[in-house]
Every structure is written in C-alpha cells, then in structure tokens.
C-alpha cells in the first residue's frame, strides 16, 4: 500500500522554520553571553537534531546532510569539546542562513544551491575540528533586473546610482540594457536579499528591481542510507560496547517548559482568517442596514425586537474585535530579527551596538506588521550608520564605547507606536538647516525642531557626510514616510545633539476597519478618516478670501487653503462647513455640504474591486447599501494645487 507523505510537507516546513528561529536566537544569545547553562546547549543541539531527523524522513536529503554537519558541531559544543567562540557562532549563523535559504527553495519547489551547501558543510566541519576555521568566502553570482517607469535622463540617473550601489559591494560583470529592462550580472559575497535591501536606497516606487541567484547546475540527488532496523533479541550487540560518553548536559529532566504551546494552538491558513474578516465586514454592513430600518419603529411597541437588535449589535462588535484579534501578532516576532541585523551592521561599520527591545508583546495586525519591516530596517540601519558614533568618538564624548539602540512598542488610544531610539550623536540641527537652505527649502525665521527635523523626510534630502554602503544616498527617509503613510501611519523625530535620536512611528491597529466621519458632498456621502480631522468650523461667505484664484480663510494665526468638495458648497451664499484636515505638516479646509455622522467603516479596496482612483483611498458600503468613497487626505493635500480642479469631484 503506497503511503503518500507529501501531505505533511507544509507542517514539516513550519517546524523547520521554528527550529531555525531557535538556532538563531540561541546563537545570538551565546554571542552576547557565552555562559549559558547545559539546558540551552541541549536545546540548540536538539533543534538541529530534529530538523535532521524529520528532513530525512520526508526525503529532503540536502537538508538532512547539512543539518547533520551542524548537529555534529553543536554536539561538540554541548559536550564542551569546543567553546562558543565568535568563529563558532558565525559558523552556526551561516548555517542558519543557508538552511533558511534551502527551506525557501523547498517551499517554492526550486532546486537547492548545492554549491553553497557544500561550502557550508566544509565550514562546519572545519569549525568543529578546528582544522581551518575559515572556509573560503563563497562568491555567488546574482542577476539584477531593473525595470523603471522613468524615462531618458531620469532613467539613466537611476541606473547609474544602482550601478554605483552594486559596484560598492560587488563586482558588476555584465550589463545588458534593451531600453526596457536593465540587467546586470553581479559577483560578490552578499546574498540576494542583502542586495535587494541595499538597492532600496537607490530606488523607489517607480522602479521594479528583481535580484535572483544565477541558475546553478541542479544538484545530483544523493540517496540516503537505506533504512535499517533491528531487534535486541536477535542482535549481536555485546554488553561490552563503549559506555555513553559524558555529556555536558545533565540527565534528562522533567522540567516543564512554557514555550511549547503546541498543544494549545493550531495553525490556520491566513486566507481563512481573511475570509472571516470579510464576512464580519459584510455582517457589519447588514447590521448597519438593520439598525437604520429599526430606527423608524415605535420604541414602546417593538421593545423586545429593539432590545434583541441591540444585543445583536453588541455581539457583532464583539465578534469583530475577536476576529481582528486573530490576525494580531506580537511585534516581538519582528523585533527578534533585528538582533541579527544590528550585530551584522555594527560589525561591518566597526561599531559596537547593543539592541534592547521593549513592549514585545504589543500586538499588531499581521499585514501592518509585514509592512513596517522595511521602514524599521531602514531606520535601524540609519541609527547605526549615522546615529551611533565610533567607539573612539563615544569614549571621547564621555559615553560608553558601545552604543545602544532601543526598539520599543506600545499601544495608546487606538494606535500602536514603535520607537527607534539611539544614544548616538543626535541630528545636527545647524547642518540640517544649512542643507535645507542649499536645497531651497523654505523654513520659517525661527524654525521649531519639528520643522527642521521634518526636512529629513523630504525627497532627496541628506546630510550624510559620507556615502556609505548602508545609507546616506539621499533617498530613504522619504521612502520611510511614504511607506508609512500608505498604511495610515505617521513618523516623527525627536533629537538632542550629543544625546541621541528617537524616531516614533504611529500606526493604526488594523488595516481593515476605519473610524470615519461621513460627510455629504452633493448627492454623495463620503468618508473622511477621523484621525486626520482636527476640527470642523462653520464659515460664512464673508470668511472666505481669494488670493491668486485660491480660496483661503484666516485660521488661528495663519491661513488655511480651502478645498471645495462640490459646486454647491462653492457657489452657495449660506454657511459652509469646513473640516480642518491635516496630514504630516500639511493642513487644509475641506468644504462639504454637511456632516452626517461618525461610523466605523469596513475598508474595501478600490484597486481590488474597481481600479485605483486618485484622491480616494478606498470605498465602503453604507448601512443603506450605497457605496461611499473614502477620501485620501494625504493625496488631496499634496496634490499641489488647492484649487477646484485639483479636488476629486463627486460623480
């Protein structure tokens, strides 16, 4: 009877990923403090051992072989045969990286990189035996492909900066350009992922960059030893065989461990959760429709019906909260990966940096979590590169030689905040001001810190004295801000010269539901995100001034450009309602016909259901079944011309 075991592959892959995370976590902990207990060394060994055992059973021979070599090294480590020197830790981390790449290859049914695995085995073996602890640096050939929406000299400039970025870290060997796709073959020690990260700094949304490992010869499948079994009754083993070797580990203990939560959790496909969220969205819409029909009923005569509807409404809200909760993941899961990034980046730059994390349990929607990884990576790199001084400089400034970067997360009033704080040199106010003047950026006479530090988020702005491999290419912080804005987030900076910089990201709790203000514009209802509305003001026609064909009003001690959302609002002589909206440092008054109310709305993507429409970030279905567009305040404020034409019209 043939038994198909491929059905367990997914489960096996997840398991390997968990063991790899364990290996990386412990290796990094040992790097910081090698005085770990036997239990820790055991756990490290067992992670590799488990991968080996399972990969053999499921027929993943390359992984079984590679983990066999890693297991031997970890066994020597727990037996005390070798010490956790930085070389040993580096070998373990390299094994982790290669195994992770191999896992990714398995998952996507791609061939394993036999060459890399061979080098890994050589290195692990050498590290264990101490023969030649340094395996030769393996060079890989990567193919970089760039397609860009830019034309002519802009395209050439982008390609040149990409070429420079690549040239700084690797040999660029062949370049081919058919005017559509630019293709380069690059040889160096860096992994594809690393190259992709570096190119983030030279590109933005206009450019599409693909980096992939050049195809290698398919590995020869190597059969594993035939399986064997035996029984002790009929077996030849003499009782005189060598006694078990002394292990660093103590006898197996029955110490209960909290970390194995396997029995109380299940794995669920994210698609199933998303389907639930969609259904809850529909339920909220139906609920709102029900609510508005019931509102017309006589309260006394239909008391029971109304109170049942009230309970239903409450449970609907609870169900929504609970379902959204399923998608929430602790941010610690992404903080953990920064230990590695900080270690590697600091070492590349000859700096000493300790990473602290706080608020690891703070939960964030899975989708949001994924979209903050890139901005966070960029900010942490920046902090190490520009914030933290070299050990000599730090000592001269009376600081400890090792710098500290703290990643902290916390939840406050419906938002999640993530802070990246360093104790480095701080942002040089005067230099930013000088740079801003050179770049023709208008600053007020006595600019506030907010105003000055805000400049670093403008496109093309950089004060970096040296262009390093990592950052300071003058693109970056604006990308961070744009990425955050795209998910409804916000970024601000605090910095004190000599004492350090804190960058604070503010994120919504979820991407799927928005606290909205519904407003009437002509015959349409539109939704404004409440987070971007500062206040509403009532205007009479005489309050509105016009300069250079642009309407504005006096607002507090400044002026506020007005955006008329409909012709009615523009032409009527009566009173208007203007909503003061702000995004980043821009503000404007949106003049609407009326404010209808406040709702939680379920965001439906326009791209997915219709097409992208400038000025709107999405749509929602109202209780009465009609569709309302959600205004994209950022797009409206930055469209440049606060005129009638620039405004999305209700149609």
């Amino acid at each position, binding site marked *: 009877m043939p*038994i198909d075991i491929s059905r367990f592959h997914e489960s096996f892959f997840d398991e390997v990923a968990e063991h790899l995370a364990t290996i990386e976590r412990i290796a990094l902990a040992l790097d910081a403090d090698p005085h770990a207990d036997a239990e820790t060394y055991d756990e490290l060994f067992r992670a590799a051992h488990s991968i080996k055992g399972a990969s053999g059973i499921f027929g993943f021979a390359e992984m079984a072989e590679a983990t066999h070599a890693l297991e031997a090294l970890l066994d020597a480590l727990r037996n005390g045969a070798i010490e956790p020197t930085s070389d040993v830790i580096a070998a373990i981390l390299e094994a982790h990286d290669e195994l992770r790449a191999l896992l990714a290859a398995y998952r996507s049914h791609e061939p394993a990189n036999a060459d890399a695995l061979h080098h890994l085995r050589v290195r692990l073996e050498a590290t264990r035996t101490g023969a030649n602890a340094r395996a030769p640096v393996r060079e890989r050939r990567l193919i970089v492909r760039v397609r860009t929406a830019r034309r002519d000299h802009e395209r050439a400039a982008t390609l040149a900066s990409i070429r420079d970025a690549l040239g700084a870290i690797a040999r660029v060997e062949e370049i081919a350009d058919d005017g559509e796709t630019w293709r380069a073959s690059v040889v160096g020690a860096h992994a594809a992922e690393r190259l992709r990260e570096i190119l983030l700094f030279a590109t933005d949304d206009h450019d599409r960059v693909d980096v992939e490992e050049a195809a290698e010869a398919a590995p020869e499948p190597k059969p594993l030893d035939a399986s064997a079994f035996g029984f002790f009754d009929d077996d030849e083993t003499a009782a005189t065989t060598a006694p078990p070797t002394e292990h660093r580990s103590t006898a197996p203990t029955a110490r209960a461990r909290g970390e194995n939560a396997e029995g109380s959790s299940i794995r669920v496909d994210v698609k199933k959760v998303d389907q639930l969220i969609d259904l809850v969205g529909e339920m909220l819409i139906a609920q709102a429709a029900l609510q508005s029909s019931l509102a017309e009923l006589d309260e006394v005569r239909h008391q029971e019906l109304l109170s049942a509807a009230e309970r239903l409404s409450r449970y609907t809200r609870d169900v929504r909260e609970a379902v959204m909760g399923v998608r929430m993941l602790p941010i610690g899961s992404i903080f953990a990966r920064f230990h590695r990034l900080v270690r590697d980046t600091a070492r590349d730059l000859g700096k000493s940096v300790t990473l602290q994390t706080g608020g690891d349990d703070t939960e964030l929607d899975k989708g949001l979590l994924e979209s903050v990884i890139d901005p966070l990576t960029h900010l942490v790199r920046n902090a190490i590169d520009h914030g933290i001084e070299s050990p000599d400089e730090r000592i001269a400034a009376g600081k400890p030689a090792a710098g500290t970067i703290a990643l902290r997360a916390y939840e406050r009033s419906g938002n999640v905040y993530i802070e990246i704080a360093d104790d480095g040199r701080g942002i040089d106010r005067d230099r930013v001001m000088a740079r801003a003047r050179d770049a023709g950026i208008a600053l007020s006479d006595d600019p506030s810190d907010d105003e000055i530090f805000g400049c670093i988020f403008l496109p093309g702005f950089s004060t970096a004295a040296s262009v390093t491999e990592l950052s300071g290419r003058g693109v970056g912080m604006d990308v961070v801000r744009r990425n955050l804005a795209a998910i409804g987030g916000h970024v601000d900076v605090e910095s004190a010269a000599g004492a350090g910089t804190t960058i604070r990201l503010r994120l919504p709790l979820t991407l799927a539901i928005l606290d909205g203000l519904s407003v009437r514009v002509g015959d349409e209802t539109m939704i404004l995100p409440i987070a971007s509305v500062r206040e509403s003001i009532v205007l009479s026609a005489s309050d509105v001034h016009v300069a250079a064909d642009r309407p504005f009003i006096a607002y507090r001690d400044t002026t506020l450009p007005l955006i008329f959302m409909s012709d009615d609002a523009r032409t009527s002589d009566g009173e208007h309602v203007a909503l003061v909206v702000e995004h980043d440092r821009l503000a404007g008054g949106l003049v609407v016909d009326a404010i209808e109310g406040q709702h939680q709305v379920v965001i439906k993507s326009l791209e997915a259901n219709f097409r992208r429409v400038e000025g709107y970030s999405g749509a929602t279905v109202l209780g009465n079944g009609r569709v309302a567009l959600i205004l994209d305040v950022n797009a409206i404020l930055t469209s440049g011309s606060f005129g009638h034409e620039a405004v999305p019209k209700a149609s």
Partner: protein
Amino acid sequence: MKTILTVDDSPSVRQMVSYTVRSAGYDVIEAKDGAEALELAQGRSFDMVLTDQNMPRLDGFGLIGQLRNDPRFSATPIIMLTTEASDEMKARGKAVRATGWMVKPFDPDTLLAVIQRLIG
C-alpha cells in the same frame, strides 16, 4: 483494534507516523515527549510503543526505562526510532530493555513491516 503510542517531539514526524499506522488499521495515541507519554501511560496500556530518542523533558531511553519498571509494560513491544545505529545506542537500548530500534529516516512501508512483525 490494537493501539500504538507514538512519541516524537516533531509534529510532522508524529503526524506521518500516525497516518501510516492508522492507514494500516491500528489506533494511535500521540505524545510529544517522554514525559507526556508517561502521563498517558498512567491511565491505560498500549499494544506497542514507537518512540523517538532525542526529546525535551524526557528522552526515549528515559521513557523506556520507566515504562519497563511498570509491570503493565514489561512485555509491550517498544521500538526506538533513532538517527544513528551506533554501538552506544544499541548498548543503551539493550540496557533499558527496548524491543528494537529503527533508524531514521525510515519509509512508511518499513515501519509497517516492523509493526506487523511484532504485533501482527
């Protein structure tokens, strides 16, 4: 129906063993390490035990040693699934009175052949 206890800290291996054994008409109880297996064994007996060696909390040798101390399990076939068939392993397996050993990786058919030979 005969019941087999399978003990392994790897969920995918456990699932695979269970599936294989179940498809041959046996009933299966799973435990994720030796300690959990011992707890399960407090309340009931099994016709056969398949256990991994290297596990957190209590490993395969420890589990077999303790099971053999219990009269109910003194004659139960217990197979140790191990990644290496070294002399050391065999000596330790014999010392705790395991019935036999099987080297990982094994294929499902070999596993069934071993089970059928021991408990039919």
